[in-house]
């Protein structure tokens, strides 16, 4: 087995392991996106639902691995894309099936709501400095590259195949040199916009007696957003510097190292969220079960919140019942399209 295929299998296995535990990282009164009794997760019925989900998810992951293997050996591009897609979409379907199996044990969510009357404004962790640093890093790289313009090769690789060989090149133009930095800025800006959306438009603790838990959960998520901004700045900075450092076709920092760094940083920030999610007494999230389509898509025009906690996955999701959500989706599409148009 080639080293590239091994790396792909490691990624696939990592995703499968993540999906294996993902349904457990929820509030204590939620099971597969359904509001249940707080101790339901310890019952035999709950374990049966979880076991069934895991069997389906692992079976699909195995099929995804076969597709990946066939894709690499027969050099069929669609198989390479279909493998991971099948794994993730399959897990979503398995989760929706788990939700259907949990529904008979659903409890009517308590109507009691509580909100703090403290009007203190919240900020992203680290304050303005933590927000500015990633952009400053990318700007510093841009200044450095322009100061050393003549030392850059006239043609350099900007894309590499899974075997590490360069397959796309750029000329020494502002688009070619600054492109990765602009793309990095856009992705980081999107992260920050999401962070501010969480601060401004997600509940600070809707259910009685869970405000403290929610505050810590929000904080851990916001820390992850700020931390990922720094990580992405480093990643895009290294990619932009590659033509200067490498002078050849190879990547100075190998793909596996970049991937490992991203996984390590993500894990470091996700771990506190997982720990908080495991605590008992976190109750429910105060969103009606019937507004969750397939347990994952929140659509509630009666809820003024634009962002709500995910019921499957880490972090927050959009309330598609809120008109402003389409603005956010438009911004996302724009951020994907702008680098392509450049």
């Amino acid at each position: 087995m080639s080293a590239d295929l091994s790396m792909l299998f490691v990624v696939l296995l990592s995703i499968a392991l993540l999906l294996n535990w993902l349904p457990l990282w929820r509030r204590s009164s939620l099971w597969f996106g359904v509001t249940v009794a707080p101790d339901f997760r310890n019952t035999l019925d709950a374990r049966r639902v979880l076991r069934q989900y895991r069997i389906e998810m692992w079976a699909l992951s195995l099929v995804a691995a076969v597709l990946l293997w066939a894709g690499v050996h027969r050099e069929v591009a669609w198989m390479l894309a279909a493998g991971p897609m099948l794994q993730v979409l399959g897990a979503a379907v398995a989760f929706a099936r788990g939700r259907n199996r949990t529904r008979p044990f659903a409890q009517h969510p308590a109507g009691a709501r509580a909100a703090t009357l403290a009007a203190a404004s919240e900020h992203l962790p680290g304050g303005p400095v933590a927000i500015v640093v990633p952009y400053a890093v990318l700007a510093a790289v841009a200044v450095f590259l322009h100061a050393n313009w003549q030392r850059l090769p006239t043609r350099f690789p900007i894309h590499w195949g899974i075997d590490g060989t360069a397959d796309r090149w750029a000329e020494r133009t502002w688009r070619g040199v600054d492109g990765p930095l602009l793309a990095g800025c856009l992705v980081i800006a999107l992260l920050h916009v999401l962070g501010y959306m969480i601060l401004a438009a997600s509940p600070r603790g809707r259910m009685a007696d869970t405000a403290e838990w929610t505050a810590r959960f929000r904080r851990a998520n916001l820390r992850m957003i700020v931390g990922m901004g720094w990580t992405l700045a480093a990643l895009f900075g290294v990619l932009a510097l590659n033509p200067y450092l490498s002078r050849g076709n190879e990547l100075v920092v190998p793909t596996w190292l970049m991937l490992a760094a991203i996984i390590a940083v993500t894990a470091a920030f996700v771990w506190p969220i997982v720990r908080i999610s495991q605590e008992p007494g976190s109750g429910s999230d105060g969103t009606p079960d019937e507004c969750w389509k397939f347990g994952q898509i929140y659509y509630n025009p009666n809820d003024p919140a634009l962002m709500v906690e995910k019921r499957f996955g880490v972090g927050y999701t959009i309330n598609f019942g809120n008109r402003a959500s389409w603005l956010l989706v438009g911004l996302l599409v724009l951020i994907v399209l702008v680098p392509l148009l450049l």
Partner: protein
Amino acid sequence: VTQAAQLRIDLDSAAPVNRQIVDHLRTLLVEGAVAPDDILPSVRRLAIDLGVHFNTVADAYRTLAEEGWLEISHGRGVRVRRRRAPRADDETLANYRRRLRQLVAEMRAQGLSPAIIVRELASLVEVLKS
């Protein structure tokens, strides 16, 4: 406002949500949990936190502003005012006496014993005295 000061409502209750917000917030104001010059969450913030429509919270704030408890100004949020209690006349007293009797009757009809009701009223008296 301290972090401990929480506004509580019950969506399953027969009472309209804006009425519940007015009643509970007024209780907190009278008991001093929310003091004059405190800044309350904006309409938008409170609506998101409670999961109710913006207009519901805006209605409640407006009612309390009309009673003289709150000052609502665009851009500066909602501030608690120093409110001078109006002088109550005999008719007002009679009105509240009737409502208290109705409330006590309702409590007894719900199965609460006179001893429990007396204890609850006594605790209210303690709060008033303090």
